[in-house]
């Protein structure tokens, strides 16, 4: 697999008053391969959104290098080559929809890239189909629910046929139903269209669905592993102000109380299974 995003020892800070620099990223190294589904976790101010903004050259590192699809993000001439390959979805769906009609908005990216009109039509129809919003293509954005708007925003990105999509807390402003819709869409895009997904989130249940979880704290990477391994560090995660999925937490508490349960439980089904298993064994004894 090819590396799509490579960060080497990147440092980034915002200038403060009195000529000092407020460091947000302190020497982060991270490699993301094509086709991966990576979740980046961290509490507010951990630098997770800042690293996301480095992935399509909205920000460039002060020190270190960021390479996206083989292009150094400092190369300003190739800025749009990076942006057409790495799309970005933001938190508030209202603030990223440009046009007054759904299909016109999805066409916005390809139009900017100068794609042939007939080809744009194909891309728009296909993208709306991919996110399951085809029947709403003539609607105005304000007639849609939050989850639907966010799916339109995602369609607007995939119409540009990117290799990777970076989603910066795409579900933070949605209700549970909208959150489920968006997560399902993201997972399907990763699985069926083999688009690399980088999901910035603070919902543990969402992170548990990724193939790999990166935990950030104070501008540094704390863990970078599979969800099962990362969430087995219940105590350490709590120390940096993060939660673990509820099922994991329940098993952790039971384990603390002396019950014999495995460490790598993430979903409710796994938890239920483990508990049933435990009860059966209890009966047998």
């Amino acid at each position, binding site marked *: 697999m090819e590396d799509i995003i490579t960060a080497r020892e990147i440092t980034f800070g915002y200038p403060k008053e009195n000529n000092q620099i407020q460091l947000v990223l302190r020497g982060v190294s991270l490699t993301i391969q094509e086709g991966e589904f990576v979740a980046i976790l961290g509490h507010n101010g951990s630098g997770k959104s800042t690293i996301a903004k480095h992935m*399509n050259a*909205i920000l460039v590192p002060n020190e270190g290098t960021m390479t996206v699809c083989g292009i150094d993000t400092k190369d300003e001439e190739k800025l*749009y080559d990076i*942006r*057409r390959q790495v*799309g*970005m979805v*933001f938190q*508030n769906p*209202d*603030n*990223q*929809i*440009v*046009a*007054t*009609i759904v*299909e*016109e908005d999805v*066409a*916005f*990216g*390809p*139009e*900017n*890239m*100068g*794609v*042939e*009109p007939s080809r*744009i*039509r194909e891309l*728009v129809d296909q993208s709306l189909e991919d996110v399951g919003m085809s029947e709403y293509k003539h609607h*105005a*954005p*304000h007639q849609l629910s939050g989850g639907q708007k966010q799916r339109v925003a995602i369609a*607007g*990105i995939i119409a*540009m046929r990117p290799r990777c999509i970076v989603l910066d807390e795409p579900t933070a402003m949605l209700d549970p139903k909208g959150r489920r819709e968006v997560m399902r869409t993201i997972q399907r895009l990763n699985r069926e269209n083999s688009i690399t997904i980088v999901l910035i989130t603070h919902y543990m249940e969402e992170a548990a669905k990724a193939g790999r979880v990166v935990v950030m704290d104070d501008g540094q990477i704390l863990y970078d592993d599979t969800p099962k391994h990362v969430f087995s560090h219940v105590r350490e995660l709590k120390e940096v102000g993060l939660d673990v999925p509820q099922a994991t937490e329940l098993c952790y508490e039971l384990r603390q109380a002396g019950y014999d349960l495995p460490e790598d439980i993430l979903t409710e089904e796994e938890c239920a299974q483990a508990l049933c298993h435990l009860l059966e064994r209890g009966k047998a004894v």
Partner: protein
Amino acid sequence: MLKDITIGQYFPGQSILHEMDPRMKIVLTTVYIIMLFAASNPLGLCVSIPFLVLAYGVSRIPAVMILRSLKPVLPIIIFTSLLNMFFIDGQVLWQLGFLKITLQGLTTAIVMSIRILFLIAGTSLLTYTTSPIALTDGIERLFSPLKRLKLPVHELAMMMTIALRFIPTLVEETDKIMSAQKARGADMESGGLTRRAKALIPILIPLFVSAFRRADELALAMECRCYRGGEGRTRMKQLKIHSRDIFCAIFVGVCFAAVIAINLWAPVVLTMR
């Protein structure tokens, strides 16, 4: 209550007028305006009566809509008619002290009122049958030759589109802020004009702050979608001139020719200024 605001005055439908190319509609509306003012003979003005009746008939816009569009201009019409009636010299019909009504004044007043009424009724038809987005699109393409004169045509059209896109969002937001301020005890319904105007401040300030924040985020999102102005940009929807557009253009052309012909050869029924 704020939800009732409609954007523009688009009246959806599927008539030939709705489906016409927006560029052609804008051009023909301009021709229609010229036609109204070119008709120096009242008989010429009469040509626009069947024209308007036909246009409204074809578009299936209810007649009530015409009245609604005329309502705001009524005071202007009355005011200009009064001025015309009393202050134009000529053959005196009626006199009371310094006030006098002349034949010429009366005709001018009537002709001017009809002109303004027809002007509003005709141009409203453009906004009734064209969605704001199509209108913006039409304006952008119609004026695109002006790009050579360094006029930011694309940018202006983009601004219009974004404004239209954000009206419902900001209306919703205003509603929310008003409820929030009311919940904090803000009083917006009582008091005199100044007090009410002052009561708007706690609504406008949060609204402005949020609008700026939205603009900032939108700009970022647009950049991420490779937006870099109108250069090298293609459009998904291409505008095409169909036979119906040509048909309507011919129709308007014939009407215009009729007006000119009447101007030249028809006997002058009433002398006009």
